[in-house]
């Protein structure tokens, strides 16, 4: 799976209240949530994002609450993947479960700036900064996780797996 888009860069400890403020959690509709994604720390986020763009951030991205609405809002806003130095643990699980790719790579974060164009290959973990002509390596995604992400998340993946097992029986 190859992704290509521009960078929107943020600092450390981007928390779930910043990603989607709790005052909007009276709905779980992804498109409604996307409208308010990042608004408390970046009011013009939605105007700037084009489909397939990346969020790039420092350490502990997604800290705070367990709300799955956070990766859902990011994904529905059109972001194709989040690249950070580290992720908060609940966010990490939630992102994978709903099919939002996330990558940990210190160098890519340090050497990428807002507006740079990246090309990311999840199967190899390669992150190419086309603007700066540099190549970085994150851990590659194993096959089952690539399949999980391409099917749209854990639930779809589980359903397909169960269906395939039943077909064999």
């Amino acid at each position, binding site marked *: 799976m190859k992704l290509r888009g521009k960078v929107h860069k943020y600092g450390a400890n981007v*928390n779930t209240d910043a990603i989607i403020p709790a005052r909007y959690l*009276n709905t*779980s509709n992804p498109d409604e949530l996307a409208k308010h994604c990042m608004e408390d720390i970046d009011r013009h986020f939605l105007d700037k994002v084009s489909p397939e763009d990346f969020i790039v951030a420092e350490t502990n991205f997604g800290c705070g609450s367990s709300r799955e609405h956070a990766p859902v809002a990011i994904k529905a806003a059109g972001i194709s993947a989040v690249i950070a130095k580290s992720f908060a643990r609940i966010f990490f699980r939630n992102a994978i479960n709903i099919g939002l790719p996330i990558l940990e790579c210190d160098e890519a974060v340090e050497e990428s700036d807002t507006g740079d164009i990246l090309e990311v290959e999840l199967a190899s973990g390669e992150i190419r900064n086309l603007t700066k002509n540099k190549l970085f390596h994150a851990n590659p995604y194993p096959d089952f996780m690539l399949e999980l992400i391409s099917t749209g998340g854990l639930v779809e993946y589980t359903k397909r797996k169960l269906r395939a097992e039943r077909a064999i029986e």
Partner: protein
Amino acid sequence: MTLAEKILAAHSGKDRVAPGELVNVKVDLVLSNDITAPIAIREFERIGVKKVFDPRKVVMVPDHFVPNKDIPSAEQAKIMRQFALKQGLVYFEVGQMGIEHVLLPEQGLVLPGDVVIGADSHTCTYGALAAFATGMGSTDIASAMACGEIWMKVPPTIKFVYHGKPGKWVGGKDLILYTIGDIGVDGALYSVMEFVGEAIEALSMDGRFTMANMAIEAGAKAGIFRVDDKTLEYVRARAKRTYKVYEPDEDAEYARIIEYDVSRLEPQVAFPHLPSNARPISQVGQIEIDQVVIGSCTNGRLEDLQVAAQILRGRKVHPRVRCIIIPGTQQVYLEALRARLIEDFISAGAVVSTPTCGPCLGGYMGVLAAGERCISTTNRNFVGRMGSPQSEVYLANPAVAAASAILGRIASPEEVMN
């Protein structure tokens, strides 16, 4: 093995587990609330399973935006109520409900040695009872509601040792704020924080719940305490089923051991916009406030209200300040009423609300306008957490919050009590 490793080993059918190992863990309780349950229910139904694995082990609590704050919240609460009643789950309607992490231990639903997962990050609160409890997202919760198991990576444990006896106005909130201030908001990322030492032994159960509650604010997967006489006394009065007490091995391996002398620790105040921005009360300076919140899953228990009442009794809330007090559960409310604490609060000019998470996450019952400042006994002070992104939240213990309500600025309890 550490305490956490022992619990995880027992729940995954293994003799031993080690940090980094992936295990499938049987869960004793699966929790969700009015914000996270609707998504969990939707995903559960997509999986295509008809019934939850065990309705006695699935708990739903409407507490975040309930009593319903608006029509969309009412719709979410309705989805949860209908599912809970249809499936015969453990469910608490308005009138019985309270803030989930105050309510579940009080009702004896969490016991030592349990594994609990909840679609709420502060599920780690139950570590005070020597349970392994951690927050997850709605999809993980849906999967656990279906099969009663969840995969986990066994986390390393960091041991925190607190030496000495802290002073009168220093509680669990100050120990944990000081700790997060020292190690940072990702200082225990993916790890278990185990709390031990003289100061921990002296700490009440309510104080331990406060500390375990905020383990997530250091990035931890869980916070955990060992069982002692206080734990057993708390549990004995409440348990309706058997439980198992686990102890760490003498030669348990810890990723780190961090030691503090807290005998001269002052009450701590965490400045905006991170819980790690902790400063001792003597170094706070002149900070005027508009609002005070005393309550939440962090500090909404009886002891917290007793401390606040001790300071507010016979005094008046500053005329410029809104002081909002929220007992964590109906039981806490009732006990506070019987002890005449509610009378103290209302006479002082505070408002007392029915149990809800409300203002803590900027939901309702005390949302801040741009430029306003609140000192709060809650757990997070992120940008926009309690309302406007231009507002500020300072975190503190109930004594500091109550003293600040009287003086209209962030203040030490000693300024009021002397």
